[in-house]
């Protein structure tokens, strides 16, 4: 039974710096990196290559000793130039100097009609695409030994300045469908494809076969897969479901149809500080320098891999994250503002309407920087988080339970149903400026590892 769900709670953050739906050209990057820090829940990564080794796209370069079957592979062919470690030898980055022409490891095509589930799981785990499959609860890479109750794909992204998924996957219809077909083999339950109910939408999604199509409409976070699961079949204790983002589905499809790990993808360059914005074809883990340097409107900026709510600050020489389909560049906000907490303004974006905060009168786009606009405080204002979290969850009480490290409360109040991205809006609107995404992860880690 496909469902149509209308959500009312939430908040669309309307920023300056949207990209037109057109491809732009940039010189391809020379270096690429796989960042183990992108993969949540990685425990004991073991590096398989040394500096100076040559690899092909699809060559395993490290794995997690806690889940040996899943291999993390090189996105391009070339030479390993650095295995960067941080404090306590924590693995930070494995950098590859790319060949001009990408050479692929032959992983063998997959005939979905003949293959059994176990072999398919193994092929996906060896083929570099497995990390796209995320397990809920907890939002960590799925364990190949598990079988999920269902698999969910959100076909649209409602985050600020987010890419249009249909545009990103243009021309990849066959791959996308093959990816979905592969997913249907992984679960005895259904594969849900959740599409945007507010738009006519691309036939790429609405005509997809062998899946259950559900429609979601409303403000952000309507596109968050966690919110969607909550309204389709909420996760209870003991349940296990998997989620994949559409780009991951297409990459799985490429492995199935072509027999190679092709990490190329289309990402969107956005943000108020970029001069040339648009969609660009790149490869997972690409250095962002070429996209950013010489393409800036001002000097003092922050480059973000991902969107402004859940992304990660990277340097101008940094690398695109494994899961990110977007680079956002916004002004850095490290300035003091005289009576900044009191001045009336229509140009500063706020969910609230407290005295002088008149942004609700401004229907236009907002240029937002990274200033926190205030210091951290205890929770004082109540009822705000509830307005931006369209789930039957009491966020304030959940956060307090995590603070108190009360395991029973965390469980009972719904920590199984949310991950960082679901509370990103709560973190944005919080007048007390708490780091709620970090808090939620710390709670999840408590539940997982103790």
């Amino acid at each position: 039974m496909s469902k149509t769900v209308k959500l009312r709670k939430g908040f669309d953050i309307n920023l300056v710096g949207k990209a037109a739906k057109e491809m732009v050209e940039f010189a391809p990057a020379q270096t690429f990196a796989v960042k183990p820090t992108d993969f949540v829940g990685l425990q004991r990564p073991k590096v398989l290559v040394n500096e100076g080794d040559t690899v092909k796209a699809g060559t395993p370069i490290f794995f997690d000793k806690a889940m040996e079957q899943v291999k993390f592979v090189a996105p391009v062919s070339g030479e390993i130039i650095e295995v960067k470690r941080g404090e306590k030898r924590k693995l930070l980055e494995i950098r590859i100097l790319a060949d001009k022409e990408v050479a692929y490891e032959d992983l063998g095509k997959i005939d979905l009609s003949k293959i059994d589930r176990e072999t398919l799981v193994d092929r996906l785990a060896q083929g570099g695409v497995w990390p796209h499959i995320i397990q809920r609860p907890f939002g960590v890479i799925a364990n190949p030994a598990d079988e999920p109750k269902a698999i969910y794909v959100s076909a649209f992204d409602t985050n600020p300045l987010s890419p249009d998924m249909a545009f990103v996957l243009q021309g990849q219809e066959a791959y996308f469908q093959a990816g979905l077909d592969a997913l249907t083999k992984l679960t005895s339950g259904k594969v849900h494809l959740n599409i945007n109910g507010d738009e006519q939408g691309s036939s790429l999604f609405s005509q997809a076969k062998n899946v259950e199509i559900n429609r979601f409409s409303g403000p952000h976070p309507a596109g968050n897969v966690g919110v969607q699961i909550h309204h389709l079949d909420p996760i209870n204790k003991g349940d296990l479901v998997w989620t994949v983002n559409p780009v991951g589905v297409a990459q799985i499809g490429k492995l199935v149809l072509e027999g190679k790990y092709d990490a190329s993808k289309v990402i969107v360059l956005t943000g108020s500080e970029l001069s040339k914005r648009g969609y660009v074809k790149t490869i997972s883990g690409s250095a962002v320098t070429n996209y950013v340097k010489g393409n800036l409107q001002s000097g003092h900026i922050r480059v973000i891999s991902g969107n402004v709510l859940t992304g990660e600050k990277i340097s101008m020489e940094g690398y695109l994250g494994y899961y990110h389909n977007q680079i956002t560049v916004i002004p850095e906000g490290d300035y003091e503002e005289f009576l900044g907490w009191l001045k009336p303004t229509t140009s500063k974006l706020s969910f609230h309407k407290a005295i002088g905060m008149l942004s609700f009168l401004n229907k236009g786009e907002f240029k937002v920087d990274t200033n926190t606009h205030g210091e951290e405080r205890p929770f004082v204002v109540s009822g705000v988080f509830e307005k931006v979290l369209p789930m039957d969850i009491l966020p304030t009480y959940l956060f307090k339970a995590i603070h108190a490290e009360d395991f029973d409360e965390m469980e009972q109040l719904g920590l199984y149903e949310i991950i960082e991205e679901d509370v990103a809006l709560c973190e944005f609107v919080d007048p007390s400026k708490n780091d709620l995404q970090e808090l939620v992860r710390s709670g999840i880690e408590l539940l997982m590892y103790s």
Partner: protein
Amino acid sequence: MKALQNLFDSIKPNFEKGGKWEKFHTLYEGHRTIAFAPDLTTKAKGAQIKDATDLKRVMITVVIAMVPALLFGILNIGHQHFMATGEAATWIDKAVFGAISVLPILIVSYAVGLLTEFTFCVIRNHPISEGYLVTGMLIALVMPPYIPLWQVALATIFAVVIGKEVFGGTGMNILNVAMTARAFLYFAYPAQISGDQVWTYLADKTAVDGYSGATALAVAYNAGVEGVDAGQALAQHNASIGADFSFMNMFMGWIPGSIGETSTLMALIGAVILIGTGVASWKIIVSGFGGAYVMGLVMNLFAANEFMAMAPHLHLVMGGLAFGVVFMATDPVSASQTETGKWIYGFLIGALTIIIRVTNPAYPEGIMLAVLLMNVFAPLIDYYVVKANKTRRLQRATV
């Protein structure tokens, strides 16, 4: 503004680790962040942008919402004074007289409260929070105009220390801080905060013949005791000098009472600001008035005496109900924090206020005790609302 920034920068080393005033670091930060919104940026991971509203702006919104009540209070203190003494006076005279009696109370409340707060921030080394901006104003507004300043200071210290800081500061308190201050005075020094003599500031003058300084609540209560119609008793009270307790007079607030509480209209203007800006919960305000009205009707059903038989709409404009429901009950820290809980919490505050008013001769004003009582019960209400949420989740799992 560069000059001010430079001044802050120049004294900054003294407050840093190893500086001579290292201990007072939090005071430095507190003042700098009032002058300048801080230059903090978001972390490398997580939300990269944050909402432009912070707690300071939320708190100042509440303070601004109370300004109409304060200004009206000042004017009314003067108005009551000249009416009681029978002297002719212009509005300017009244405002000046009112300001002379109200401003010292306000200043003492802020000065003593902030000093107490700063002391705790320095000792406990936590940042100065904005909460007292609101509390300082509230404490002044719930005082009678005649109150000795040392009592204001004492009550403020008691409220900040016992009501808030012992629990960990702003955001952690169980009781509404301003109500704690008032309750402290009520039980420690009842002579200065109850009876008929304290609500009109006579200074050294004497009242005209036939003037009674009683509050509307006292008049209505006495009507109940004496068995005369409460509505009529109110309308006839001080009617000879035009200071009667008609519905309109009480709604406008030209009656004796605590500084900020007399005018229902000003409380409603505050409510409009608070609800319009989304700072206070409209659910608490609406259910608070609703609870009072419904309980007024219930009292009518029993009608054991004339006060109980009084028309319920009069209850809404008498005493401090409107002020308490709008500004005290909605304090988000001590109120119920679940959305369902807010309905119950507000309703019970309204209802309890009327019960205390009508049935208890010792406490003619019920709102103070009703708010404090419901502050104590708010976590219990929330407990059951949260439990219902957990149960829903559990049932879903077993179906």
